[in-house]
């Protein structure tokens, strides 16, 4: 470990995002405040106003413009940052697609929240799911320290010469955005040192005023296909890159998260639970309790959602006797939750075992210890050949 000990204090998830984003030295920032993300925009604005970060804050009238500003600045070669949530993410939807198409390495924090209905000022991953095929890299974190550390890694990933893609870091509204936890904030020189390898890479193409340079996915026919194929290939390369950056981060800062997925007590596990975000933290406590009661259960925390960590998941889950996936969102038109549906696409490689889908934690509802305990018990029963329900909406059965 090379990093100096950073300051440890009790910090809100949103404050961690703003503080660490500033340490990554973005040059252009454009955010529009939206609950429960508002503190990110407010905090980073005050950091710039206090003269602690030399960046241009572009005041925008909405999220659509925020993303347009970030894309434009990014294409001109700047490091950019924005944050949003829920409807804010949806309101920038067309520009999200554009930003990905332009391969602009924008980094965005998204505070996960339900989308439909103004009363859904509440936690849920439906906003993330609504943008899953936008061409962005999507990462989900579990706690405030992981917000801090992953955000730094997001810049290494987005701006890597072999990747050059926008990255969205997701964390649960309320359960993390408003969570106050002790967090170690890395010191500036260590963040600089960790991001320094980007400076040694070939310079990515930028748009220069007056020069005849093209950008974007505007090619006709085969030009478009080629651009899409290159984008798709970069997404595929991002999987290994996430693992490499995570390992390097661990070597430097002494904290690492498993890269694409984190495996918790999976080595000798007979059954597995797949979860993401803050629920994964709770699941670790449940898994310890269930193991004490004799159930050999492990957790796979899905950190990278796009690209989907196909190879790592197969490796982790192959040979398990039953698997359950807890989704904090809905897949309309499919029977199972979105993450479960995707996992089922790997079933032929994982093995012909029961895969149970659970929907929980919608609209601020809690993914509680008894809920996850129930998931473990039902998964264990399914592994023993007992009858099981393949899709369960936990709040409806309470």
């Amino acid at each position, binding site marked *: 470990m090379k990093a100096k000990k950073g300051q440890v*204090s*009790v910090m809100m998830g949103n404050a961690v995002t703003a503080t660490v984003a500033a340490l990554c030295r973005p040059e252009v920032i454009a955010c529009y405040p939206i609950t429960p993300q508002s503190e990110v925009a407010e905090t980073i604005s005050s950091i710039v106003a206090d003269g602690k970060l030399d960046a241009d804050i572009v005041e925008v009238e909405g999220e659509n413009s925020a993303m347009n500003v970030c894309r434009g600045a990014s294409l001109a070669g700047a490091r950019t940052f924005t944050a949003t949530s829920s409807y804010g993410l949806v309101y920038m939807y067309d520009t999200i697609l554009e930003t990905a198409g332009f391969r602009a390495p924008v980094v965005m924090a998204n505070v996960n929240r339900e989308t439909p209905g103004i009363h859904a000022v509440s936690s849920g991953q439906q906003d993330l799911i609504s943008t899953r095929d936008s061409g962005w890299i999507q990462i989900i974190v579990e706690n405030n320290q992981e917000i801090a550390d992953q955000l730094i890694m997001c810049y290494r990933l987005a701006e890597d010469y072999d990747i050059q893609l926008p990255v969205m870091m997701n964390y649960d509204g309320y*359960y993390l955005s408003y*969570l*106050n*936890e*002790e967090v170690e904030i890395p010191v500036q020189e260590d963040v600089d040192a960790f991001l320094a390898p980007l400076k040694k890479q070939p310079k990515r193409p930028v748009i220069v005023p007056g020069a005849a340079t093209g950008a974007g996915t505007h090619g006709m026919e085969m030009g478009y296909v080629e651009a899409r194929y290159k984008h798709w290939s970069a997404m595929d390369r991002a999987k290994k890159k996430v693992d490499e950056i995570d390992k390097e981060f661990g070597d430097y800062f002494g904290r690492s998260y498993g890269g694409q997925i984190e495996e918790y007590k999976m080595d000798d596990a007979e059954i597995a639970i797949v979860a993401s975000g803050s629920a994964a933290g709770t699941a670790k406590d449940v898994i310890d309790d269930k193991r004490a009661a004799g159930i050999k259960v492990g957790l796979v925390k899905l950190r990278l959602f796009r690209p989907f960590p196909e190879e790592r998941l197969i490796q982790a889950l192959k040979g398990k006797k039953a698997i359950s996936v807890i989704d904090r969102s809905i897949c309309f038109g499919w029977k199972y939750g979105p993450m479960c549906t995707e996992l089922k696409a790997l079933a032929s490689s994982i093995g012909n075992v029961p895969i149970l889908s659970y929907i929980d934690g919608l609209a601020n509802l809690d993914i*509680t210890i008894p809920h996850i305990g129930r998931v473990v018990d039902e998964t264990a029963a399914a592994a023993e050949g007992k009858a099981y329900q393949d899709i369960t909406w936990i709040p409806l059965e309470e």
Partner: protein
Amino acid sequence: MKEIRFHGRGGQGAVMAAKMLASALLVEGKHVASFPMYGFERRGAPVVAFTRFDDKPIRVKTQIYNPDCIIVIDPGLLTLPTLFTGLKPNSTFILNTAKKEYKQPDKALTTGVLINATGIAVEEIGRDIPNTCLLGAFAAATGWLTLDSVLKSLPEYLSGDILQRNLKSAERGYKEVEVIKW
């Protein structure tokens, strides 16, 4: 792990109290986590806030259903039907009240803590923001942290005259608390 649940109304400082308590416990070397749960931000609406502390890192991210202590900042919330649901045995009840006596409201509660935090806050701060006074009373009644740790954590949140007033309010909460054993 100890779990504390705050019940207040928007504007009374329940959310801030929960966070200040986490900072004070961090001073004592504990691992801490705290968060509020509410719908829209608005003054006067019921607010719940949670604080956990432990000697080991806290991974659980749920709301608190089985508290060791509940702190009721607004006595108007005593009629909440679920206020005492799920309490751990021998738990502590801290109430902002001018009363000096109180009947045991639930058999799981074996310690009652009465403090006129509103009265003290109005005298010391000039407004009904009773949160720092309640933290002083919390330290005195539970012994889970020292008054000194509470006082050391406040400058993270407040400064100048308002800090001095809140320090006084917390000290008075510590000294003027009534502890009842049920």
